């Protein structure tokens, strides 16, 4: 890596520190509120177990069932309604599953193969066509059981919905512990269901705007640890990091180009907040906007050709877009409320998730490029930081619920909603990772 010489902030012994700093999260609650029409009835049968405790063996099926239910696209049968407990295709009596109106069936086994490893096998079965739709076998250490369960959910989602699942992905977010803690601000990374949060940065000062590199190996973020906003890029495996924008004024709002080579940034070094593009290899910095108004929150289109951003040129914040190569900016949100900000492109570039205020408070909205309209997706009033799942099927955001700061997610059609409540303080600034990658 050509820039390793610049990694002066790299820390040794990082792994040990990580273990110490893992917060003792107690309970994670996922509440799913969904419209039930068209949800696929599916039976996730508890997996068979060999040489393994029930608690471990039950984990994969429980995670798969929770994933599928959380998506809103499936309606898992309750355990009490399962007519039998097959663990293999050959044990399935199709008639009894048709009677309970299960359209699909997930069966499997967890086998202790020694040396702390487990073999997980699963089969997804079409009850009406009486055939296997998918089946795989994995051998993993116990610590990877959840990960493999999420992968199985992804395979099921692909087979039955026809789109890639995004369960085996991660979210980065900011947690603010009790203000009495010496370093209350945490940048954390967890599984997409909020489980297993690990802290990658602790600070006594605010942390903002985490952004995943397209290969999922790095996070860019804003830290106030030097009492002003500075943008850092951190390798989440090694913990190595370096400042990439430390100019006079604000350094903020990092967004990776789809090719991972550039960061769009908001800097105010030349007067007021403007959008710049920073080339990570050459360190070349190119100014994209020139305006006395606020220009911030850049977001790349999936093809890398366009940058959407927030500007208050018309007097209130609205979404604009500009070619990444430069030129004139065009207003995107017109007659769509007084406040539209924090754009995030969908994976196909056809819509933009944003924060909109159309007189009902700040809500997650969806701008449709085809209709040129913004529709409200939520009914809350303090929504922030919308971020698309890499398959475009859900939008996660930060909001307030019952006086608490929580992460929530909503489908682009507004019909599926979920709330992730972490018990360890204020959570905000979610960023959904790209698809799982090879390390």
């Amino acid at each position, binding site marked *: 890596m050509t820039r390793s010489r610049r990694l002066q902030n790299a820390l040794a012994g990082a792994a040990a520190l990580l273990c110490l700093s893992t917060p003792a999260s107690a309970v994670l609650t996922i509440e799913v509120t969904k419209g039930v029409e068209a949800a696929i009835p599916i039976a996730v049968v508890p997996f068979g177990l060999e040489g393994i405790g029930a608690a471990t063996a039950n984990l994969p099926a429980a995670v798969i069932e*929770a994933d599928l239910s959380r998506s809103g696209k499936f309606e898992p049968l309750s355990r009490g309604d399962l007519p039998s407990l097959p663990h293999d295709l050959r044990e399935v009596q199709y008639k009894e599953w048709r009677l309970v109106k299960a359209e699909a069936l997930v069966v499997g086994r967890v086998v202790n193969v020694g040396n702390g490893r487990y073999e997980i096998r699963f089969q997804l079965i079409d009850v009406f066509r009486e055939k296997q739709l998918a089946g795989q076998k994995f051998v993993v250490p116990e610590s990877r059981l959840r990960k493999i369960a999420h992968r199985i959910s992804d395979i099921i989602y692909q087979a039955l919905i026809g789109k890639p699942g995004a369960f085996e992905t991660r979210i980065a977010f900011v947690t603010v512990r009790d203000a009495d803690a010496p370093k209350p601000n945490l940048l954390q990374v967890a599984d997409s269901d909020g*489980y297993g949060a690990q802290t990658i940065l602790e600070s006594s000062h605010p942390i903002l705007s985490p952004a995943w590199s397209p290969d999922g190996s790095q996070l860019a973020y804003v830290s106030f640890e030097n009492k002003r906003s500075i943008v850092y890029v951190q390798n*989440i495996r090694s913990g190595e990091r370096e400042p990439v924008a430390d100019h006079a004024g604000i350094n903020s709002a990092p967004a990776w180009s789809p090719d991972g080579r550039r960061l769009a940034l*908001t800097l105010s070094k030349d007067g007021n907040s403007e959008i710049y593009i920073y080339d990570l290899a050459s360190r070349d910095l190119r100014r994209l906007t020139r305006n006395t108004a606020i220009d911030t929150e850049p977001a790349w289109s999936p093809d890398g050709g366009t940058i959407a951003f927030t500007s208050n040129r018309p007097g209130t914040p609205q979404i604009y877009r500009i070619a990444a190569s430069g030129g004139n900016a065009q207003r995107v949100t017109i007659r769509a409320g007084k406040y539209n900000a924090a754009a995030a492109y969908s994976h196909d570039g056809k819509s933009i998730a944003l924060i909109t205020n159309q007189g009902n408070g700040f809500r997650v909205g969806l701008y449709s490029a085809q209709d040129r309209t913004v529709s409200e997706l939520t009914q809350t009033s303090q929504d922030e930081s919308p971020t698309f799942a890499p398959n475009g099927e859900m939008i996660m955001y930060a909001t307030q619920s019952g006086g608490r700061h929580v992460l929530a997610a909503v489908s682009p059609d507004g019909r599926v909603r979920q709330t992730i409540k972490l018990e360890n303080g204020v959570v905000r600034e979610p960023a959904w990772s790209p698809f799982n990658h090879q390390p």
Partner: protein
Amino acid sequence: MRKLFVFWVVLAAGALIAGCGGRGAVVDESEVEIEEIEGVAGADADAGASASGIGGDDATDGQSLDDAGAAGGSGGGGDDDLLNQRVIYFDYDSSILPAESEAVVQAHARYLQGAAGVQIILEGHADERGTREYNLALAEDRAKSVADMMQALGVGAGRIQTVSYGEERPVALGHDDSAWGLNRRVEFLYQ
């Protein structure tokens, strides 16, 4: 017709740290990859920052500007009162200096002109409404509105620093108009 599902997933602390013992070999029959988050960073870099804390607010509040009256004598009678005002407030989504605060800025500008070597940090803040990044830019514009006026009144640009905390450091924790009004502010921090 809506339906509510609630899942409780108990997170065992042991499971959280299970991956920390190093990278175990994985028998890979089906493209199972190993992916560890092994790093934590920033502890060293941050230690310095947290050691000194963000005590600026308290320090400034407690700092005496007793000599301000003398220093700003050219400004006339009311400067003491005006100089004791170290915070000015802004309208929602606005960085325009409110007319009623101009006298405060003028008094501080006079003081700075008469107190060679004194530096000022103008710290901009926003209320919680709207997006964090927009508020960071908005709060900087507020600080710059004050800086611009001070410079127009003759204070050297080199003596004024602006910093923006956006909505990250509210002074009032409520979620109503009165709290928001207190949080949309620029603080004057003398060095």
